[in-house]
C-alpha cells in the first residue's frame, strides 16, 4: 500500500498525491513528513504541478511519443503561468519538469529576439526603471 502525500498550497488548498508521483520531487523525497506546505505557490499552480507528476508517475516510458506531446502542451502556457510553474518546480526540485520549463523559456526568448532586430524593450515584462535605463543606452 503506497503512501499518500498531502501538499498544501499557500492559499490553503490541499492536494493528495500518490507516493510514486510525489517522489518525483526531491524536496518531498527528503522530507520527513508526508504533509508538506509549499510556500508562495498558489493552488492553481500547485495543481498543475501535481497533474504533471501524476502523468509522469503513471507512464513508464518517458520517451513515449504521446507523453512528449502531452508535455509540449503542458508547457504551452502564457509567460505569467510559466514563470510561476518553474519557480514551483524549482522549489520542489522536480528536475525533469524544471528542465522542460527552462527549455520552453529558452525557446520563447530565442523566438522573440529573432523577430525583432532592433529592440526597444526586452521581451519580458520589465520594470519601468529598467526600461528607461535601456532606452538611454540606445536599446
Amino acid at each position, binding site marked *: 500500500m503506497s503512501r499518500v502525500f498531502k501538499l498544501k498550497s499557500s492559499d490553503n488548498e490541499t492536494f493528495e498525491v500518490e507516493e510514486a508521483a510525489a517522489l518525483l520531487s526531491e524536496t518531498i523525497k527528503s522530507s520527513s513528513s508526508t504533509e508538506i506546505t509549499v510556500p508562495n505557490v498558489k493552488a492553481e499552480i500547485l495543481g498543475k504541478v501535481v497533474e504533471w507528476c501524476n502523468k509522469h508517475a503513471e507512464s513508464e516510458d518517458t520517451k513515449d511519443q504521446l507523453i512528449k506531446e502531452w508535455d509540449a502542451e503542458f508547457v504551452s502556457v502564457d509567460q505569467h503561468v510559466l514563470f510561476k510553474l518553474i519557480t514551483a518546480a524549482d522549489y520542489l526540485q522536480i528536475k525533469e519538469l524544471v528542465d522542460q520549463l527552462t527549455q520552453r523559456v529558452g525557446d520563447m*526568448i530565442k523566438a522573440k*529576439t529573432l523577430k525583432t532586430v532592433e529592440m526597444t524593450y526586452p521581451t519580458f515584462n520589465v520594470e519601468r526603471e529598467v526600461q528607461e535605463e535601456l532606452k538611454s543606452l540606445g536599446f
Partner: protein
Amino acid sequence: MANSIPEVSKRRRLSQNDNDNHNHNQLQQQPLLPGLPDHIAQACLSLVDPTTLYSVCRSWRRVIYTRSFPPFLSLYALLSCSSSNSIQFYNFDPVSSKWGALPSMPPDPPLRLFLRHPAFISRNLPIQSVSASGNLILLAATTHNFSPALPRPLNFDLSTSSWHFGPPLATPRRWCAAGTLRGAVYVASGIGSHFSVNVARSVERWDLSKKNNSTSPNGSEYLGWEWEWERVSSLRDGRFSRDAIDAVGWRGKLCMVNVKGDALKDGVVYDAEKDTWQDMPEGMIAGWTGPVAAMDEDVMYVVDEAKGALRRYDPGRDAWHQILESESLKGADQIAAGGGRVCAVCRGRIVVVDVAAPRPRVWDVETPSGLEAVAIHILPRMCQLV
C-alpha cells in the same frame, strides 16, 4: 616589450568601469528575467546563444561572461608590432567583435625574443606557442644571439586570467616540433644554442592535468613544481630539427613533419598509448603541404600554402578531400581549428573559414591597427570578473 594597450580596448574598459560603478547597485537589484529568481533565469538564458543575448540588454550581456554560462569559443592571437620585436597575446571576442589585450607577461625575467633579426631579412624567427587545457602557452623562441629565449614555458591560464611559469625544460630549445595531445604538451627535437644529436632526437611531455589545484587564496603565481617534463620515446634520428613545426594531436596520436610548407618532407606519428613512433601514412604526408590542425583532435585540416586550398583528411582513404580554395588563404603559416571554424594566419592576416556551414565561407578578421598576427589559437572565452 611594448605594452601599450590599443585605443579601442582601453576606451572600452574605462567607460565600462564608470558605468559599472554607477549602476552596479541598480543592476544587482534588477532581476535577469522579472518574475523568476536569478538562478532559474540563468539556466534559461544558458540555452540561448551568446550572440543573441549580447544584443538584448546589459544584464544579459554580462551573463554570457560569467562562470555559470556555457563558455563560447574565442580567438586568441599572438600579435606583433609590424616594425619591432615586441609581441603580445590578444583576445578577439567573436560575440562582441572586439579585440582586447591579455594582461602583460610577467616582466621578470625579461623576455628578450626576436621575431625579426637583421641577419634574416625575409624570414621571421619562429615563436612557438600551443594551447592546452584552457591554457595558452609560449614555448620556444630565439634571442638576439641565437640562443633559446624560454628556459621555462610561459603559460596563461584562462580560468584565472593570469600568467605562470611552466616547469623548466631539461634542454630549452629555440625551435622544435611542438604540439598538444589530450591535455599534454609535447616538445620534440629542435635545437638548443647549438645542434646536438641527443636533443634532436629527444621528446619531452608536460601533462597539464597532473597539477595539484591548490593555489594560494589571492591567486598568486603557481610554483609550478608539481608540473614536470618527462621524457618519452625518442625519435629514430635527428631529421626533425630543421624547422619549427606544429605537431598535431589527432585521435590519440601526435603527428608531425620535419619541413614546413610544400617541400619534400618526412613525417612521423607518435602513439601516446604505446609510446612508439611510426612513419606517417603516405597519403597523409603527401597532402601535408601547409599548416595542419585537428578540430577536437578528431578531424584534421590542412591549408595548402601555395594554392590557398583548405582540405580535410579522410583516414579511411588516407587522402585529403578539398573543401575550398581561396586567394586569402595563400601563404598560410599556421592554423587552428575549433567550434566549426578553421582560422589561419596568412602573411600577418587572420582568415577564418566556417567549415560547419553547408556552404563553407571565408572571411578576414582585421587585426588592431599596426599589429599583425604571428599565431592564433581557439579556446574558451575568459570570464569577465565584475
